[in-house]
């Protein structure tokens, strides 16, 4: 890394382009006559003019910028249902807010804690198996794979620090390993068939050159455009469009490269011309038009064209950059604006290079921030370069094609900032981008290889994000939360909707209603016999999901067997009494001096439950339940018990799964 700027200096001195629109435009400007047309005065000037134009394959043919200078003569983002979830700890917390000595709460807590532990062990076992079964993971996270091999899952608490170190090391090296995934033997056929993959690999490595100091941002853009794979015939429209965007970026970048004066010894070597030079260029309309005319010729020579397929009728339309430029030929402000922006970004890179060189010369210690600023600014200009085409025509949807490059850039940025989760996400987006490109190519002969990639991505993402989250923190409480989230992420209520078969321990929290209310013998209404009330059962649910396949969003159907009912406790928790304290102030408070027994909350029953479509965590259920002994807790904390009785009722409640016992899916993409 520290050799970066020595290499940069060498790179910047070797700017040799056949065409250089900026400098060539300045030369050609001298040949403009009184009538604002090219009029080389003698054969020497004519030879120079013709030789420059020859580099741009221009001989006086139609060019919207140059043609006006040719002769006429001889001439173109509720409560979250309180958290609709009042997640388990909040319920138990309600229960837990209730005295922990209560049997119900104790049982629940014990159950939950054990379940969590079991699930955590299961999680690590699955993690270990996934790492062993999938070469993609081995390549991407080699150190973690080694660590997992030695992991005794039930001893994960002891192993966690070592695992975390491995996560950290692997994530830091992910840019070195990401491209290797695509070179796995199982993707050999894809690699041979689709230049998209090779381009992806090269792009990742190229950006890495930026980081290592082998290439300057300007070199990155040029090298990118020079990839041999662009010449591959018969590629998809997406690939062709990607190629055109990259080549266009190179044209603009190279057109504004700074050429060191061979006589003067310049102290600071710049990659691109300065803001001052670009202002002088755009200030003289004639020189600016000549410059644009030369760029136009280069776009024509490189056949910078974008394609899109229309549905009705099915056909491929194309639009060349030359055409886009031609449409904007009188909008010099647009070109001025884009070029100025490009040079402003480039100047930032040059300034940062100067600063780094200065610090190096003065032997001032360089910090990671220094490198980050440089890398970040370099990637900004690469990004901007690849987005130039879209700036000229908003209908030109190029962003999706340059996604891989942008994600590569983002990946490097995030790694520098130690933002591992984002970096991991970028990595997965890159691999997914590859699979999308291959799908778009419409080749069906490599479905198996493609499926291997598309199937492994969600799991790589799941475990990768877990690793990234763990690597990002060293706080025990945060690590615990991450583990909780890994074994049963928030939003798990949707799992049953997305799987073919699911068995889970879960709860519902909501409201019930029934049509045959029975008054208790005491004459007091209670939580169980009220016509409406709080519904908070805990039981086992067996479900089948219907959110299967593209466009299907039908929810789930479950058979819910109730074991306990905490409705009375929750109902009490929702009530608040006005209590006057010693200072005479009145405040809302809950009295927590009630006592219950486990047998008093046992409430067997069965419901048929419909989980709402989409991922709304609401469920509608109907069934019968034998009421618990505990029917009500009064505001004083006094518990009311009744003889249990059966009731038919319906409920609308928030779906709160505790953990999954069985989860089967035909669709391997579900996690």
């Amino acid at each position, binding site marked *: 890394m520290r050799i970066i700027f020595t290499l940069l200096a060498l790179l910047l001195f070797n700017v040799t382009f056949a065409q250089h629109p900026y400098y060539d435009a300045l030369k050609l400007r001298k*040949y403009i*006559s*009184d*009538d604002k*047309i*090219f*009029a*080389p*005065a*003698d*054969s020497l000037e*004519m030879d120079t*003019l*013709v030789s420059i134009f020859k580099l741009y394959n221009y*001989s*006086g*043919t139609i060019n919207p910028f140059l043609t006006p200078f*040719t*002769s*006429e*003569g*001889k*001439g173109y983002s509720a409560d979250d249902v309180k958290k609709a979830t009042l997640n388990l700890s909040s319920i138990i917390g309600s229960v837990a807010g209730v005295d922990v000595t209560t049997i119900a709460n104790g049982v629940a807590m014990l159950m939950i804690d054990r379940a969590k532990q079991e699930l955590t062990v299961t999680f690590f076992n699955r993690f270990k198996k996934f790492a062993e079964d999938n070469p993609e993971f081995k390549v991407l996270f080699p150190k973690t794979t080694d660590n997992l091999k030695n992991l005794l899952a039930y001893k994960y608490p002891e192993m966690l620090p070592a695992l975390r170190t491995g996560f950290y090391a692997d994530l830091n090296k992910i840019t070195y390993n990401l491209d290797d995934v695509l070179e796995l033997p199982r993707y050999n056929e894809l690699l041979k068939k689709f230049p998209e993959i090779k381009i992806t690999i090269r792009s990742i490595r190229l950006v890495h050159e930026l980081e290592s100091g082998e290439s300057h941002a300007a070199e990155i853009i040029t090298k990118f455009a020079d990839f041999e794979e662009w010449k591959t015939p018969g590629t998809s429209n997406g690939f062709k469009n990607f190629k055109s965007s990259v080549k266009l970026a190179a044209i603009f970048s190279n057109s504004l490269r700074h050429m060191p004066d061979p006589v003067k010894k310049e102290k600071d070597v710049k990659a691109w011309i300065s803001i001052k030079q670009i202002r002088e260029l755009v200030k003289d309309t004639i020189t600016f038009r000549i410059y644009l005319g030369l760029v136009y010729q280069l776009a024509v020579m490189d056949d910078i064209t974008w394609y899109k397929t229309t549905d009705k009728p099915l056909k491929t339309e194309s639009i060349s950059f030359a055409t886009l430029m031609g449409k904007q030929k009188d909008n010099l402000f647009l070109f001025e604006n884009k070029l100025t922006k490009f040079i402003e970004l480039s100047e930032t890179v040059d300034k940062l290079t100067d600063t780094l060189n200065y610090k190096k010369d003065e032997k001032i210690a360089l910090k990671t921030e220094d490198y980050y600023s440089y890398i970040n600014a370099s990637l900004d200009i690469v990004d901007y370069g690849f987005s130039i085409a879209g700036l000229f025509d908003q209908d030109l949807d190029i962003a999706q094609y340059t996604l891989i490059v942008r994600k590569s850039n983002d990946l490097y940025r995030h790694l520098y900032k130690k933002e591992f989760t984002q970096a991991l996400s970028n990595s997965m987006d890159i691999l997914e981008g590859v699979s999308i490109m291959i799908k778009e190519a419409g080749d069906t002969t490599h479905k198996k290889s493609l499926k291997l990639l598309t199937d492994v991505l969600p799991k790589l993402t799941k475990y990768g994000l877990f690793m990234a989250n763990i690597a990002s923190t060293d706080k025990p409480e945060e690590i615990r939360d991450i583990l909780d989230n890994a074994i049963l992420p928030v939003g798990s209520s949707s799992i049953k909707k997305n799987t073919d078969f699911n068995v889970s321990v879960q709860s519902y929290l909501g409201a019930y209603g029934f049509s045959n209310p029975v008054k208790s013998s005491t004459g007091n209404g209670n939580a169980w016999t009220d016509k409406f009330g709080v519904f908070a059962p805990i039981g086992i649910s067996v479900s089948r999901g219907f959110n299967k396949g593209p466009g299907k969003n039908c929810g789930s159907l479950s058979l819910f067997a109730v074991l306990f009912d905490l409705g009375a406790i929750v109902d009490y928790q929702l009530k608040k009494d006005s209590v006057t304290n010693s200072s005479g102030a009145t405040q809302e408070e809950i009295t927590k001096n009630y006592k219950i027994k486990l047998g008093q909350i046992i409430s067997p029953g069965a419901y048929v439950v419909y989980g709402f479509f989409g991922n709304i965590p609401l469920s509608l259920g109907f069934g019968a339940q034998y009421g618990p002994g505990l029917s009500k807790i009064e505001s004083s904390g006094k518990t009311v018990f009744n003889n249990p009785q059966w009731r038919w009722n319906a409920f609308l409640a928030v779906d709160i799964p505790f953990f999954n016992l069985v989860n089967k899916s035909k669709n391997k993409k579900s996690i």
Partner: protein
Amino acid sequence: MKVRINTYVNLRTELAEIHPYNNPRDIYFSPGDIINVAETVIGENYKGNDLWYRLEEGGYVWSGADNDSKITVEPNFWLKRFGLDLLQQQFQQKLSNVSISILDTGIDEMHLDLKDTVNLKFNAVSQNQPTKDADGHGTHCSGIIIGTAKNKISGVAKGAKLNVCKIMNTSSGSFTGMTVKGMIRALDKVGDQSDVISISAGVNQYDKELHDKIKAYAEKGVIIVAAIGNVSPEDRTAKYPAMFDECIAVGSLNNSLELSDLTVRNSKIDICFPGELITSTLPNDSYGQKSGTSMATPFIAGLAALMKANNAESNYAVFRELLKDHAVLKQKEQFQYYAIKNEKIIL
């Protein structure tokens, strides 16, 4: 026309054919021999070439015999052919009162055959620059009109006063520097001092200002002669100002006095005159051949100057009539055109 023979070739005496009895006296030419060609004719196809030369002395020679050699045409050949040399002698004195303006690439006014001929010069491309001819086109045209014959080239209107306007820096391609504005500036500069204006150049688009200017000078009696234009792969358009009614539009003939393939075919052509392989002056005391309607134009401009010497009151309409009198209607494929008659011109 004289042609240098490049290889051994027999003289065919009866017909333009290769036949055992077609050269009873066994006459042949050796490499380097020069023959006097009266005309080209179509004869027997031999090695894909059916073009033959008919010699002034009689007999025929297969033209393939000079495929790799330069055809050397005697300078001033066409003057003699159409009797222009005689008219030149006849109006030599009066020609000194005639002013001819050439709107072209400038002139090498120090050329042996052009020295002391320039009366007025103007650079319409870059007004503060000299009229030096870096291309050669203007110098070549100038020689055809006004060559002094001090060394080699005798102009049609030798002895007339020459005004030189540089309206383009080069004669070909898209970067000649020529504009309608430049042409107008040139006309403004020399129009009132001209009897004849020769323009071996043109533009594709009609321009009213230019037209008005041409019209105005034509009405004053200035005879403006312009080239109709050459055919190129990307351009087959007839040029302005030749297309204006008030201009005499000139096309080119080949050495056989047939329409040149490079001539733009347009009914506006008033006259076609030999324009191929014309030898004339080039910068730096050199000489060379050029072909095109540009070369035919100064011949006709020179002829206009001779007419002006004879009758200062004559104008473009009179000149057009004169040309018609000396033209013959010919046809090439579907195109009909007027070609100069193969005879001496009499004023």
